[in-house]
């Protein structure tokens, strides 16, 4: 009714000749409001990616780049055994970190959502988990050095307790250290979306399951886990893309002994081999986007917010 009435009165108003109250149509207002976002993302996201794809076909020497159309950069990247090993290594990190953060993140979120009874307490504990995420990643990363190092806390404690005769060498500057630091840095990206989905589960569903005789384990596997999947999918997008893009954690925590695609890119960039780095960037970007597109088939982000 209301819409009919307004659509009838609107032309009348327009004919009523009141030019001083100039009004934009709702659609025009939406476009105006969306313009700044579109401009910024266009200039600092789309244009740079476009530029990278162009540059990846260029020629270069030690000093500068030359516009050209060569597939050499791709041939060199994809034809090298080192590249494939680096990609495999990066995927290995992504898989390990994803598995661990998924398990840890789910239980933390589940505890907060279903075992803490007051909303205030839930928010306080959730903030306790969130605060480290808002501090410097590099500081959080290097804070593992005095803990894991040869004379670090863990080794000293174990030796003093007489459990091991000499320091464990693989605690720091190893793949173990890389995975540990990444789990430390990125678990929150898993906790938050899962917590968000769990909080939206109607508690009466859980009660219904219990009334129907389900054990708490059965409720968990048959009711809560399936409903938590969208949150897990969003968390997965975050964690996987962050690990695939990581170079600093791999560089610092492996002590230069391990490699990742982004680290390989960074090294090429420091040698001013931009076209080679660009070819790598395109391959990495395609890989990441395929992974994300696969996950987005499971979940509609717009519905989950």
């Amino acid at each position, binding site marked *: 009714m209301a819409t009919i009435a307004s659509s009838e009165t609107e032309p009348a108003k327009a004919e009523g000749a009141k030019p001083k109250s100039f009004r934009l149509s709702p659609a025009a207002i939406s476009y105006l409001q969306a313009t700044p976002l579109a401009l910024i993302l266009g200039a*600092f996201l*789309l244009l740079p990616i476009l530029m990278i794809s162009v540059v990846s076909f260029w020629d270069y020497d030690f000093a500068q780049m030359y516009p050209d159309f060569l597939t050499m950069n791709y041939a060199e990247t994809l034809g090298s055994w080192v590249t494939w090993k680096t990609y495999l290594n990066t995927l290995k990190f992504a898989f390990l970190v994803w598995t661990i953060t998924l398990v840890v993140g789910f239980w933390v979120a589940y505890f907060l959502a279903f075992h803490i009874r007051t909303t205030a307490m839930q928010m306080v504990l959730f903030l306790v988990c969130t605060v480290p995420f808002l501090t410097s990643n*590099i*500081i959080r990363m290097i804070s593992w050095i005095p803990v894991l190092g040869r004379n670090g806390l863990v080794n000293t404690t174990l030796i003093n307790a007489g459990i091991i005769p000499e320091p464990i060498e693989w605690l720091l500057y190893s793949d173990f250290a890389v995975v540990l630091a990444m789990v430390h840095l990125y678990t929150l990206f898993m906790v938050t979306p899962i917590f968000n989905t769990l909080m939206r589960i109607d508690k009466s569903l859980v009660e219904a399951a219990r009334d129907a005789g389900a054990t708490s384990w059965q409720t968990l596997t048959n009711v809560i886990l399936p409903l938590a999947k969208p949150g897990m999918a969003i968390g997965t997008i975050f964690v996987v893309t962050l690990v695939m893009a990581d170079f600093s954690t791999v560089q610092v925590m492996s002590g230069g002994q391990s490699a990742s695609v982004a680290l390989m890119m960074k090294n090429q960039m420091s040698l001013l081999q931009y076209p080679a*780095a660009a070819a790598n960037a395109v391959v990495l970007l395609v890989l990441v986007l395929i992974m994300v597109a696969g996950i987005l088939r499971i979940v509609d982000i717009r519905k989950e917010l």
Partner: protein
Amino acid sequence: MHSDKRGREFYLLAIFFVVFVLFLYGPLSAILILSFQGPNGGLTFPLNGVSLRWFANLFETQAVGDFGGSFRRSAMLGIMVMIVTVVVSLLAGLAFRRRFIGSTALFYLAVASLVVPSIIISLGIGVVFQQLGFQPSWYSSAFGAHLTWTLPFGVLIMFAVFNRFSPAYEEAARDLGASSWQTFRHVVLPMIAPSLVGVGLFGFTLSYDEFARTLMTAGTFNTLPLEIYGMTTNVTTPVLYALGTVTTVFSFLVIAGTLGLIVHLNRRRLRS
């Protein structure tokens, strides 16, 4: 509702949660303690006496590069990013309340901004600036690079906020004769103000700590995270930890202040 006693599951999960929190904060406290290392102490435990020497060292410019300058630049950049993130996300959130042609594309562009590896953005903006003949600097190229990271968070938060926002309040205001600006200023804005403060906090801290995106875009002068990253490879004294302690304490202060502001805004809204 939950009148039954806490089961074994609760205690197991509570222990798990405590261990997780210790895992989050433990290493950070190691740095905090070690930054008070004595003058002859090294990068690891045990403490070799207690001193403020490394904090003093931090403010002697020649010792560790340009700590003061990089801190000022990072703080400035954080504030710039914060303001733009809040304004642009709010506008985009308002825009997304209506479906318009291209809204889905713009939404997924924002999501893409979140998933594109940070180093690719860094490289891309660096190359664009080089090809256009612009000098990259923290207030232009790095500023834009940081926005590609903070804006998607802001947009997603505003999207979530407006998803839960009932249009009934605005309709009521309009029925009472409020103009659309008055409706926004006196009805919508007070209700979403706490979320906007949250978006601002994200904008500031994400920018203040970001460094992969700054790597190729900072130009001549380093931001603080770049300075710290450089130090990880060539500084072998606890001055690194002192710097870590100072920036972490600064972050904590910013977070605490913001949370206080959010609580205050919520209280005021409930009172009125």
